[in-house]
């Protein structure tokens, strides 16, 4: 008894430190996806356009992981924030003639974040099915607004005339898309590592608490709506940055960027990869887009059936997504070797 009490002061705390290091600490394997992402355009320079699209959707899926994976809030309208970012970046260039890309990107992040703050302060008062429906309704309204305002947005015909100056005044936008790829990768890495650091913070731990048990989080003194609103704003900002990258990389957007299909696709990617672990967003976006690209080449009409089948199989067999499946296999190997 005496020994265990003394132990609680010293070995208990060091055990807790070991636990936190195991939970939040960096692993060598985390360098792997980034090395692969850097090597990719060197190995396959002709696939840089597809690669850029993957990177952009990775960022979009990451933004969704903050609220779906960590906070446990399901939304079917996240394309609204992606689209606000895309149109902000597109319009400052096409309508205002501002061609410097990085400031356009920041403006898009701020606009989408502000939109997230305003809409979130209403949406987050609701929960469950009501919240899902409201996100759907909100994004549909934004979509229809952009459609009605076609003089400004270009509607289904698209926003013409997005022109960008060289990146940092140095790198011209090349036809193979290598500059775009490097640009998107840099923004993705900066956003990812910021989230990766944040995932170890009390703030993100609090989001997990809200996901696990709201009543108890309130009972320990958490202002739930405020906590969620900050997370929602952060998520909307990153979604807007992803949208801005999309507009800038393609130099063209239509109101499709605001559409329900994009909201559904990004949620599908996240579920495919596994929620609440950041790397799931990366894996899900990669597998989804590569599979969709491959299936579309095989069958231009029925490819969506293949994507749907893939999702059904993964969710049935591995409810925690592809990364959850990998974690399970690794845990089994460790148990067998132990």
């Amino acid at each position, binding site marked *: 008894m005496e020994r265990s009490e003394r132990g609680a002061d010293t070995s208990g705390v060091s055990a807790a430190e070991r636990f*936190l290091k195991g939970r939040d600490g960096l692993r060598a394997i985390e360098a792997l996806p980034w090395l692969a992402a850097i090597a990719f355009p060197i190995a396959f320079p002709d696939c840089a356009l597809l690669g850029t699209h993957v990177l952009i959707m990775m960022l979009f899926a990451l933004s969704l992981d903050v609220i779906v994976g960590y906070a446990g809030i399901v939304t079917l309208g996240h394309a609204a924030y992606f689209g606000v970012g895309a149109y902000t970046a597109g319009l400052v260039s096409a309508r205002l003639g501002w061609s410097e890309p990085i400031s356009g990107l920041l403006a898009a992040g701020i606009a989408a974040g502000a939109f997230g703050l305003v809409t979130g302060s209403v949406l987050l008062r609701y929960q469950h099915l009501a919240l899902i429906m409201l996100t759907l309704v909100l994004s549909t309204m934004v979509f229809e607004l952009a459609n009605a305002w076609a003089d400004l947005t270009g509607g289904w015909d698209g926003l013409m005339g997005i022109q960008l100056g060289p990146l940092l005044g140095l790198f011209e936008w090349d036809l193979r898309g290598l500059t775009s790829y490097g640009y998107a990768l840099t923004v993705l890495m900066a956003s990812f590592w910021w989230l990766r650091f944040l995932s*170890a*913070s*009390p703030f993100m731990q609090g989001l997990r608490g809200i996901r696990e048990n709201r009543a108890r989080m309130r*009972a320990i*003194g958490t202002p739930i709506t405020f*906590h969620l609103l900050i997370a929602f704003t952060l998520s909307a900002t990153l979604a807007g940055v992803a949208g801005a990258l999309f507009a800038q990389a393609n130099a063209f957007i239509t109101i499709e960027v605001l559409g329900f299909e994009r909201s559904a696709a990004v949620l599908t990617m996240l579920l495919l990869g596994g929620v609440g672990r950041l790397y799931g967003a990366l894996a899900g976006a990669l597998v989804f887009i590569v599979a969709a690209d491959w299936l579309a080449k095989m069958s231009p009409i029925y490819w969506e059936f293949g994507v749907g089948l893939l999702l059904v199989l993964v969710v049935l067999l591995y409810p925690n997504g592809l990364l959850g499946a990998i974690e399970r296999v690794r845990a089994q190997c460790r148990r067998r070797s132990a």
Partner: protein
Amino acid sequence: MTAAAASAPLLSTAGLSISFGALKVVQSVDFRLDRGARHALIGPNGAGKTTFINLLSGVLRPARGIVCIGNLEVNRLSVEQRVRCGLARTFQISQLFRNLTVFENVSLAVMRRRGVGMSMFRRCSSHAVVTQDAMDIIGTLGLDDEAFQPIRELSYGKQRLVELAIALGLRPRILLLDEPMAGIPIGERGPILDVVAKLDPEIAILIVEHDIDFVFQFASQITVLANGSVLARGTPAEIAADVAVAEMYLGGGSHE
């Protein structure tokens, strides 16, 4: 005892009432809890005990009457604002973060109390005081061996201890314990009985409990609630001698 009773109560109610539809669940209850109090709330099922706890903690708002923490009327304060006034509670049905570990469960409460619950710029591991406080509580409750196991893998008895540990992580001045031993077989109540008996004597405790032997041994004051109103209140000896209480329990017949 007399000195404590003379000062302002830590927690008090006056004329507290609430109805669910036509059912008057709590009816004009006057109640006070002093510093260091060991107060038990007993009564048959459906007497309004948990509703009373929900009124005190802010989950429910009263139709009439007031709740005060110290001299402050808190009727309009939310659950989380009352926590900041030093009021913590546990739940009759465990409310835990089931996929998080014991250490993470307690840490969430400690982070709130330390004011770093929203901290975005430092990792959990660099908040050393949080880790220290959480492990202290875990050690006190004898949960060291399970500290890094997720709640869902714990035995029910251990889960009830975590339920208490989270509340203690807030270092409350006032602690409301809603049937801390609910669902634990009689023979396995030892650990939690020990913990409750050894709580800091400064904390004012209101406990709802059905185990009459424990209540009579633990509490210095007992309030008996029946059909939402106070049937009797007093020391254990007074309650034991109370005719109305005896009639209710004997008349009810089903208790224990």
